[in-house]
């Protein structure tokens, strides 16, 4: 009993200690958002603000050129939610094909998929931009959202690996029961890879949320700008920057990501355990 208590204490000391080291920068960011813009760097080693001010939040929220920060959050949410739904669902479908089915050309297509991950985007960016310009998709969220519905290689590969940890006997049992391939996918595999899908959802949400290049290239109108673009508006290397507003809005923009993480991480843990099935 005593040994157990010791183990419990040590566990929490290690975990909490590690956690503090990990999140110190976030706390610093939070505290800095309550400091006056000019003093953020000169007092950067001093965590607690000498004078607490809220104006960074009110100023930052006003946004730029008549668009409040709420507009940017709304724009980003629309884009991110649409893209995430598409990426997670389509990737699960494709992953089942690669992970569970045998067909001619499978290795070929899998290799192609891996190759698309290995080529730096910078060199496909211009041809892709020209392509989207030819089909008149510029100045809309289409070039960002629609391709997400055709599977994201990172998530496909992730889910393939999870599907392959699922015992094959399950399929045989299901096939004997007369399950078609789609029902096998939908009824048996999908529930089992919920942890992987939750992980993919968290990543997709966060990556899209912070992505700058896509919105920067494809959204022209300030009324369509996203959070990642807006955060950079406060800063410019050549002139004055409003650090306070930038930090305050960084904190605000972390909240949705934080919420999504908190919500989905439960599903990573509480995903239906395979234990009952074997």
């Amino acid at each position, binding site marked *: 009993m005593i040994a157990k208590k010791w183990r419990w204490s040590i566990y929490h000391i290690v975990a909490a200690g590690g956690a503090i080291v990990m999140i110190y920068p976030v706390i610093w960011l939070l505290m800095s958002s309550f400091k006056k*813009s*000019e*003093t*953020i*760097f*000169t007092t*950067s080693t001093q965590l607690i603000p000498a004078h607490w001010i809220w104006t960074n939040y009110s100023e930052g929220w006003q946004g*730029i*050129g*008549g668009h409040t920060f709420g507009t940017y959050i709304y724009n980003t949410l629309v884009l991110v939610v649409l893209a995430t739904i598409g990426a997670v669902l389509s990737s699960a479908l494709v992953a089942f094909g690669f992970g569970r089915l045998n067909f001619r050309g499978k290795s070929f297509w899998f290799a192609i998929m891996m190759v698309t991950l290995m080529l730096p985007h910078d060199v496909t*960016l*211009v*041809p892709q*931009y*020209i*392509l989207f*310009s*030819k*089909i*008149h998709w*510029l*100045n809309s969220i289409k070039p960002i959202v629609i391709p997400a519905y055709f599977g994201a290689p990172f998530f496909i590969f992730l889910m393939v690996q999870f599907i392959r940890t699922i015992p094959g006997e399950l399929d045989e049992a299901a096939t004997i029961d007369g399950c078609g391939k789609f029902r096998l996918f939908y009824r048996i595999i999908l529930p089992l890879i919920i942890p992987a899908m939750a992980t993919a959802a968290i990543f997709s949400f966060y990556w899209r949320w912070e992505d*700058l*290049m896509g919105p*920067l*290239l494809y959204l*022209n*109108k*300030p009324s369509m700008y996203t959070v990642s*673009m807006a955060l*950079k*508006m*406060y*800063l*410019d*290397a*050549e*002139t*004055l*920057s*409003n*650090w306070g*507003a930038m930090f305050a809005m960084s904190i605000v923009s972390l909240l949705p990501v934080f919420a999504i993480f908190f919500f989905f991480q439960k599903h990573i843990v509480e995903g239906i355990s395979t234990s009952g099935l074997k």
Partner: protein
Amino acid sequence: MGKKLSAAIALILATTLTACGSGGNNNNTNQAANTNANASTSANAGKTDTGENVTLRIAWWGSQPRHDYTLEVIKMYEAAHPNVKIEAEYANFDDYWKKLAPQAAASELPDIVQMDISYLSQYGSKGQLADLTPYLNNQINVADISENAISGGKVGDKLYGFNLGVNAVNFQYDPELLKKLGVDKPDDNWTWDDYFALASKAKEAGLYFDNGFRPEVFFGYYLRTKGQHLYNAEGTALGYEDDQLFVDFFKPLSQLVKDGDTPPPDVKAQIKGLEDDLLVKGQQVGIFQWTNQFVGIQQVANRPLEMAHMPGPDREKGLYLKPSMYFSVAQNSKHKESAADFINFFVNDVEANKLIKGDRGVPVSSKVIEAIKGTLEPAQQQVFDYVAWAQENSSQMDPPDPIGAAEIITLFASIAEQMDFQQISAEDAAKQFREEANAILAKNK
């Protein structure tokens, strides 16, 4: 969705061969293929703008204050021209150029684009920008603008950018800190020798003197005082023959770093923003930079700063007024006249310039300068006065940077860094710079 998709596939197959090749050559040729969904209504293409509805896209870089007042100026223009609608696109400097390059490659540039001197040749001579010469004295009134200011936007005989305002370089310093070195102000006619003598006292006083010189700007200035130029007139090679000039300029500078009179590169790398700049924190006497940067540093430092001239001799030969930035009109614009009209408004309208207040450099219109003088903050007033002085005491600018300048500027910064870290002698640096810079410029032959 399905229908759209198959249409998309068909289109792609049809354009497979041109998808990449069309990057450059379609400015004029395949306009038809480029009827752009978002540019505007196509009804008025090819006609003059009077009375008809026109939508213009305009893009610039900057930070929040510039975005805010530029949007105000746009509103003023729209109020005066109800048939014109202006769509703004703005970003910070780095992001701006990331976006502009693909837009140019796809012939999707906004009608009006803000241009920087180091990109003007690149975009201009590769067919992306329209020659503005035909619009002078038509849409753009240049009665109050000097010929010198206009020609700052010329590449060869084509006017690819309209100068929005000018800057000069000088020495911006804290008089209280300078006093610690036993001097009230640098002599009006100080020389490089005076500069080195003064700067080498900084360490003893527990200060840095300045934070170094941007190599391409200040070595360029130095060369001009010697009657030489950084680039030759054609932009095909370096413009100076004698590497001794390079050594004379950089050797003492790296000695200052070695002696601790100016900060080493790693100290500078730890500065996060204007707010913890060494000058602002009172650890550095002054800074050599462009006049338009004075307002910002003054505001952050929040104590009186002064401006002094560049060291000479032959300062007048070295000094020049540099266009701070330009507005250019895209070659793919279908409303070039309207775009030119907006540029006219931006440079000539007094009310608009009461908002702009020299943020894009000291205005080029003498009428505007006269009219807005009373509305300026003290620091802005100092800048205007300095530029007015420089106007009388400077020489004609070199042509805009040649193609490849961006690569040379990076190379130069890297070589200067090596000298400041004492990794390479000025003599070897001179040789290396000449070799590599000439290799880059040789591509322009």
